[in-house]
């Protein structure tokens, strides 16, 4: 609440007189402990000097600004993706190395797959004369309001410290993309934005995760709690947290059982022993069909890093594998990564908002299937089996109780800051067509919102460029045993994985151009910039399916 009030105040102030007023109102930001040092790096025969400034704003968010000695006037403001607010013990698969066991609050100044990649991107921009900056938001989880505020304070701070900043371009990935988009639309301080695999709204992202979670609970293990974790009444009350840890264990058990069943018999894998609610007649259907159905009803991509939903091992199963088994395995692979984020993120959102944020009491899952019932009929084991599974998920089935949300919690999650599509500055999106965490449908929603804003006179045309990263036409590799081989690095176009350094630098270049000119690069220019990368494409008419939660 405090943050929301402050945000409104900041908005008014900044739109009125921007930096001067803002710094006058909050002089303490200038007084926060800032530390600047002169440093640099060797680039070939040259030494690239820059000033590195770090500090903490009034809200406790850390920041970092790197200002090159030869500055060209443009600052890249980077927003990192979601970080876990909930700290976890060491858990196989989910938290094997303890990454999620400690709070993370360090700022990041550029995107990249690894810390080294992020440094490379930052240094490349610095040597071109650009400044880079980023905040480490004081609150993790779905902390969009806090992140926007931290970014705004950072821009004010940067302009105060370096008055030569005359252009600010914003970029971010995943939740950072969402933050960047929201920031660029609303506050008049951003000149252009580039948002990488942009997250949807909080309500829809969590509904997506909860749809999967609820169907896993309903079909595979009714003892999973999933929603309505016990709210703590004191700082030492860990009941809800232990419920979450219990759920993670149960989900891992289910995922392991499903994986083993498919490995044992990919054609007719059996249901997990924990599927105690499901009648035997339903269990006669290969469980891979249930896995596929869950993914289709939730809106998950049917391609994953290993499975292209097309290829099959050489031999009699080749076509059947591609048609009926590969899409289910892709969903399973996608689920295993999305579910961990979903269950932990959902718990965090419940703690943030004080109750269950998910409500599927009125959801018609059957209606959601749509054409996918035709397209994936083979994988779903036919119309009859599909009808049987949908009947079990029907809200009238007492064995599949629906989840009712807390009205206050729903209001809370809906009130998280979100972009609206009222785009006012050149904006570039880059997304994988088969991203299981932030599916391509979220970008389509933004496109629709933007088109509506143009129609309503709330936005000008020509300010949104969508770039897509797609998988190869076919990519699943099979070992001599016939088993699919998981690549050591996620397949391009799939999964929620950062782009390559080359791709990021092309986006950075397009973003700089947009920031300088106030106009998007033309489609031809953008295509030309990407012409050597067959995994990237631009097609204004490409229309990914909206997420079912958004329809």
């Amino acid at each position, binding site marked *: 609440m405090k943050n929301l009030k402050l945000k409104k105040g900041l908005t008014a102030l900044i739109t009125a007189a921007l930096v001067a007023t803002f710094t006058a109102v909050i002089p303490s930001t200038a007084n926060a402990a800032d530390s600047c040092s002169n440093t640099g790096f060797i680039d070939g025969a040259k030494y690239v000097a820059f000033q590195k400034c770090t500090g903490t704003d009034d809200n406790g968010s850390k920041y970092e600004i790197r200002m090159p000695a030869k500055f060209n006037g443009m600052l890249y403001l980077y927003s990192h993706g979601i970080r876990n607010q909930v700290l976890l013990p060491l858990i196989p698969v989910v938290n094997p190395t303890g990454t999620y066991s400690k709070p993370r609050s360090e700022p990041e100044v550029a995107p990249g797959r690894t810390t080294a990649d992020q440094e490379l991107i930052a240094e490349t921009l610095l040597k071109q004369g650009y400044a880079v900056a980023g905040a480490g938001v004081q609150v993790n989880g779905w902390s969009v309001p806090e992140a926007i505020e931290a970014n705004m304070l950072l821009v004010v701070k940067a302009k105060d410290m370096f008055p030569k900043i005359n252009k600010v371009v914003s970029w971010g990935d995943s939740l950072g993309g969402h933050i960047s988009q929201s920031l660029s639309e609303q506050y008049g301080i951003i000149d252009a934005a580039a948002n990488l695999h942009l997250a949807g709204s909080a309500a829809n992202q969590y509904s997506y995760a909860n749809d999967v979670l609820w169907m896993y609970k309903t079909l595979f293990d009714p003892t999973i709690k999933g929603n309505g974790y016990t709210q703590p009444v004191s700082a030492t009350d860990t009941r809800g947290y232990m419920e979450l840890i219990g759920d993670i264990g149960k989900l891992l058990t289910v995922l392991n059982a499903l994986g083993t069943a498919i490995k044992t018999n990919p054609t007719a894998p059996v249901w997990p022993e924990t599927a105690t609610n499901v009648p035997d007649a339903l269990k006669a259907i290969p469980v891979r069909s249930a896995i596929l159905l869950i993914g289709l009803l939730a809106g998950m991509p049917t391609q994953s890093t290993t499975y292209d*939903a097309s290829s099959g091992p050489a031999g009699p199963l080749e*076509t*059947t594998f591609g048609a*009926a088994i590969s899409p289910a395995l892709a969903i399973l692979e996608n689920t295993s990564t999305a579910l961990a984020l979903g269950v932990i993120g959902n718990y965090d959102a419940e703690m943030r908002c004080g109750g269950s944020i998910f409500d599927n009491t009125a959801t018609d899952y059957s209606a959601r299937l749509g054409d996918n019932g035709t397209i994936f*009929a083979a994988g779903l084991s*036919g119309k009859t089996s599909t009808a049987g599974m949908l009947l079990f998920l029907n809200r009238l089935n007492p064995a599949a109780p629906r989840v009712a949300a807390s009205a206050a919690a729903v209001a809370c999650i809906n009130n998280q800051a979100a972009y609206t599509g009222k785009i006012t500055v050149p904006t570039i999106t880059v997304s994988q067509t088969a991203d299981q965490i932030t599916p391509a449908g979220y970008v389509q929603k933004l496109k629709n919102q933007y088109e509506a804003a143009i129609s309503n006179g709330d936005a000008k045309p020509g300010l949104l460029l969508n770039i897509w990263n797609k998988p190869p*036409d076919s990519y699943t590799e099979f070992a001599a045993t016939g088993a699919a081989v998981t690549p050591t690095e996620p397949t391009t176009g799939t999964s929620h994985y950062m782009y390559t350094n080359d791709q990021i630098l092309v986006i950075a270049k397009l973003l700089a151009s947009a920031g300088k000119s106030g106009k998007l690069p033309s489609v031809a220019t953008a295509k030309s910039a990407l012409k050597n990368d067959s995994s990237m494409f631009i097609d204004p008419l490409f*229309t990914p399916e909206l997420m079912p939660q958004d329809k």
Partner: protein
Amino acid sequence: MIRNKSMRRASLVSAIVATGAMVLSTLPAQAATPGVTATEIKLGISSPLTGSAGLSYGKVPGAMKAYFNYINANGGVYGRKITLISRDDKYLPTAAATQTTNLILKDNVFALVGALGTATHSKAYKAAALAKNNVPDLFINTGFSGFTDQTKYPTTFMVLPTYAMEAKVIAKAIKDNFAGQASFLIAQDDEFGTDGVAGFKTAGHTFTLAPILYPQGSMTSARAEAALTGLSAVPGKPVVVLFGTTDVTATILKAAEKLALTTKFTWYAGSVGADANTLLALGVKPTTVNGVISASFMPDAKDLTDPYVKQFADINTKYNKGITFDNYVLAAMNSAMLTVQALRAAGKDLTRAGIMSAIEAKGSTFASAGLVPLGYSATSRIGYNGYWVSQLNEKGEGKPYGGKLVIYTTDSGAGAVEVSTFVRPTMPKNGIPTNS
């Protein structure tokens, strides 16, 4: 003087502008149409070349190319050569979506022709945004009645009759010829089968037992044997309708051979599942094939007395060397000939909208090998709208059931199945359309 100079400059500018306008106005309208140049029309097809479906359908693109090459060798269409770009989708929905998108974005084709399969094309149509791109989606090889929905598939033209139509014709044939016998349906459990089930229901035909439905790719020998063993307990000589693909028909007929039940039943295979060459290639005995009843809208590819068949067979010999002429080749060349007529009907200034309007306006009059009428109009995207009932012999030849060719027409809804007096248009001279 200054004034005169200015006037001269103004006149010169006007003249340049006017000349430019004239040049622009004389440029062909198709300059901006994707896939069309003054010398070429690029078409695309996504279909199975490999995988299990490639065995049957793999010949389709090659046969279409052969016919187009024949047309190209005879002047093309208004001087433009037709290039057909073929991509392999293995009969898999995701691959079809990828390949169709590639045809539009990478290959920049003018139109798609002959896309194959219900699940595959449902996904591909949406993924490649064919409606938004206004890409003509010509003569698709699926009988799913959903593709008749012009709101959902505004650029699609079917060539096959719908599965519902076929079911209605089969129902009439059973009623007319096998009244009193039990009847059973073994059908693929997807839109293909359920469209058929709906057609039988509309026709008022009730099967003796509930249809046996199986997911695509799941019919095994054991499953077929179990089904036939169960059905064989019914007395008499029941009619078994097989509403699936030819490989499944083969699996079931071979199961009947193993169980010595081939003569226990009257076999009625739907048009999609009755390709005799494929049945024989898959090991079904000629004696089993002999007598299988089916429905078709095309002449039999072995009937070289048919002028269309003869002409296409000759083209195949010259332009598709090494490929056996069969029903798939015949159907593919027929679709290619429909395409050429559509291109001609659209006129010299070829546009995507123009070709679709041309088919709506003139498609029902196109010359075609089909023995039943074409149903194209402003409100109908269905191609053939009827069937004749055939019976295979040991050589795999399809002959009119009962010895006399009877053409039935109907619709996908509640309309009656009627005997038609349709007489197809004469084959264009040398198989080269000259329509406009």
